[in-house]
């Protein structure tokens, strides 16, 4: 699809420069931390245990997430029902929530005093202990199942409808559908989905600690905290950051080739109907999958909502100011993320080995925010006082973290657009900005809307590096929420959590919708 015969334009060179800058933004801070370290740093047995545990819990979380996502995606792909689209959007909410909010919501349902356990107790059964490896996996599945569902759903919807009709006409049974449709789709989509979730889970800190139940659940990120805060061993912290880079590159090399060619941002609107080999059993199973996923994902959100709603109106003005600041910050970092992602995505379409550049962007989710934040702090400090720059730096880091998701959405669509419209534009002699505006961008609106929505939601919900730089009067909404929690003001914190959840979803919805509306009018 990508031919090297086409010359690289200014936009592609911009992309190359930006890709290099992104790599630098991750590896530079790591290097800065390393420069301050005493050499040679060493890893103790506890660090190796943390690495092993991190790999184990991330692999398990990724595996369970994608496995459970299969029946849900299958059901959403072949059934149409009222509220399907709203459900798909709402189901994405856990992924966009600040971790502590998600965890508290999850515990309200599955915790020792949670609804599920109350129900078990009422039925005379023993209460289930959620803390431990099972709790970590439960929470990671809660946070990442929606992402897995969406990725698999894209695979389903990329199938031409003729092929599904053909299968109907050939009399495919449910088993034939599974063999000839589902397996090839899953083979193409699962490695990428699993990789993405695996990498997200490798930097898990609060979830792993709160739900892990104790020090046997120590992750690499916690080991970095220990090295940094407890032992002030910068060398070990940087070395552990390097381990994260190695894990990212290793896992990426294993999985990356397989995720190419599947679009993240499109095709959620139509379920493929009618479905060959449909039976009453299949319908019942689909209904069960959708109901179970809805309950699993939405009940904890409902718990957050129920607890926080009463406090919402009485929130102190500081929280509203922080909310406004967070919205502006989210919009700014979304703009930055899009400005980074677009040229890089266009560059990727011209490369023979696109996985390499995209893989670099994955570093931004795989490497410890603590190490990056600290390194950035050191770098900025060598030039100027970092304290007034807290908000811009936070916005920049948020944009970097959102980059891989934007790229995952944009690259396949950009490749498609280049292959179809690109040739036409070539033939018409369209060049430069005109080519981008009229030939390529219109085809990218939907994935761009979806990716920008994700980026905005990330920036909105993530505590981010602001916690390392904070000064009075600069707090973001997540930071103010943590501050409320830290000042005993639990009710207000729960109210702030609802506000955060609502704003995050609204931002995501607005961008996602915007991309679709434009796509329709074009």
């Amino acid at each position: 699809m990508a031919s090297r015969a086409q010359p690289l334009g200014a936009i592609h060179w911009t992309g190359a420069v930006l890709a290099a800058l992104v790599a630098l933004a991750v590896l530079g801070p790591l290097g800065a931390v390393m420069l301050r370290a005493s050499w040679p740093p060493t890893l103790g047995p506890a660090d190796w245990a943390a690495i092993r545990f991190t790999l184990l819990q991330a692999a398990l979380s990724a595996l369970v997430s994608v496995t459970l996502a299969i029946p849900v995606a299958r059901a959403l792909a072949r059934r149409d029902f009222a509220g399907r689209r709203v459900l798909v959007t709402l189901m994405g909410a856990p992924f966009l929530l600040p971790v502590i909010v998600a965890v508290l919501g999850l515990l309200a349902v599955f915790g020792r005093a949670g609804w599920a356990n109350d129900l078990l107790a009422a039925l005379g059964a023993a209460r289930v202990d959620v803390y431990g490896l099972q709790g970590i996996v439960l929470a990671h599945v809660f946070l990442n199942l929606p992402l897995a569902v969406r990725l698999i759903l894209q695979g389903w919807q990329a199938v031409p409808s003729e092929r599904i009709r053909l299968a109907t006409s050939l009399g495919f049974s449910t088993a034939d559908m599974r063999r000839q449709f589902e397996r090839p789709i899953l083979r193409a989509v699962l490695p990428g989905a699993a990789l993405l979730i695996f990498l997200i889970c490798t930097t898990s800190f609060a979830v792993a600690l709160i739900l892990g139940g104790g020090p046997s659940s120590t992750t690499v990120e916690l080991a970095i905290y220990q090295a940094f805060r407890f032992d002030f061993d910068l060398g070990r912290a940087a070395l552990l950051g390097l381990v994260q880079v190695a894990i990212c590159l290793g896992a990426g090399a294993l999985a990356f080739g397989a995720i190419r060619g599947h679009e993240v941002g499109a095709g959620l609107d139509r379920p493929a109907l009618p479905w060959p080999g449909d039976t009453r059993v299949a319908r019942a199973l689909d209904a069960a999958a959708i109901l179970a996923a809805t309950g699993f994902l939405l009940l904890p959100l409902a718990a957050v909502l129920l607890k926080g709603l009463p406090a919402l109106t009485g929130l102190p003005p500081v929280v509203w100011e922080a909310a406004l600041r967070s919205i502006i910050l989210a919009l700014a970092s979304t703009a930055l993320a899009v400005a980074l992602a677009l040229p890089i995505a266009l560059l990727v379409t011209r490369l023979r080995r696109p996985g390499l550049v995209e893989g670099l962007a994955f570093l931004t989710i795989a490497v410890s925010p603590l190490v990056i934040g600290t390194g950035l702090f050191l770098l900025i400090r060598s030039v100027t006082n970092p304290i007034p720059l807290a908000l811009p730096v936070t916005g920049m880091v948020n944009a970097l973290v959102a980059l891989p998701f934007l790229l995952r959405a944009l690259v396949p669509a950009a490749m498609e657009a280049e292959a179809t419209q690109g040739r036409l534009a070539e033939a018409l002699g369209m060049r430069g900005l005109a080519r981008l505006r009229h030939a390529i961008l219109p085809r990218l609106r939907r994935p761009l809307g979806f990716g920008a929505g994700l980026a905005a939601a990330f920036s909105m919900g993530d505590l981010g590096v602001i916690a390392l730089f904070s000064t009075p009067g600069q707090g973001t909404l997540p930071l103010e929420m943590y501050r409320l929690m830290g000042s005993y003001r639990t009710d207000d914190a729960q109210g702030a959590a609802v506000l955060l959840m609502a704003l995050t979803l609204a931002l995501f919805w607005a961008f996602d919708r915007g991309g679709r509306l434009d796509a329709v009018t074009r």
Partner: protein
Amino acid sequence: MKHTIIAAGLSVVAGAAFAQTPVLTVYTYDSFVSDWGPGPAVEEAFEATCGCDLQFVGAGDGAALLARLRLEGESTEADIVLGLDTNLTAAARETGLFAPHGITPDGLTLPIAWDDAEFLPFDWGYFAFVHDTALANVPGDFEALAASDISIVIQDPRSSTPGLGLLMWVEAAYGDGAGEIWEGLADNIVTVTPGWSEAYGLFLEGEADMVLSYTTSPAYHLIAEEDPSKTAAAFAEGHYMQVEVAGMLAGTDQPELAQAFLSFMLTPEFQEVIPTTNWMYPAALPASALPEGFETLVQPSQALLLSPEDAAARRDEALATWQAALSR
């Protein structure tokens, strides 16, 4: 973002315009500077007398604060660091960044004697397990707690200062026997959280019977929420103290102002802010001056505190013991 950069630029310009006003930069933990912490009231009170601009910079918690200072080294902008505790002061002193405060503190109301050339206390508290008054069979010491089936949630000493406080509490009370205590507690511990907020949140959600916090925590519920249902369990071994301190940097360009702030820190104007913002005991305020409600709090029979040097020396081994006991 452009907006923020412009705003940042403007504040630099504004700073230059008022260059005649000396600036005192105080690094402290984040919850101190939050709108619900002591920061705003302290800033207003001090600026009313000092003819200066007091600027707080927040950085995580006490341990993050020390890490930040170590990162910046001698070139730090800080004049004062406020919010380390005695588990951190040995390491802080070792950096050589702090100057003697030169103040003889009068009227300290700590339950222990204070003699530290670099650091002055501004508040303190007792670590304690907080629970609902409805809880039956409240344990009276660690052994009783370990033997009971009462569930607790604690903080990780590697990422939290209260977590480290608990580690030192068991260490101070049991010494070589700490490992056994931790093994006994293992099945009581519901989970270990990264920080105080998460642990306290879980406790309020009903995830555990007790949470590691402070004897002063019930005062918040009593005074701010008029809810008398929370109390702290008195342990016979005595309660480990957290003493929060401040010190001035040797490299400060405002030594007089820094010293003035440290003196101000021990005056009633500062001290009276502490109880209902930080929810700790002020370090230099007689019990009679505490807000109504504080008299209801549990009074430990004995105050435990390892010296900074002891705490630093025993920390790593205590952590290893803790990890080994709880990892089984």
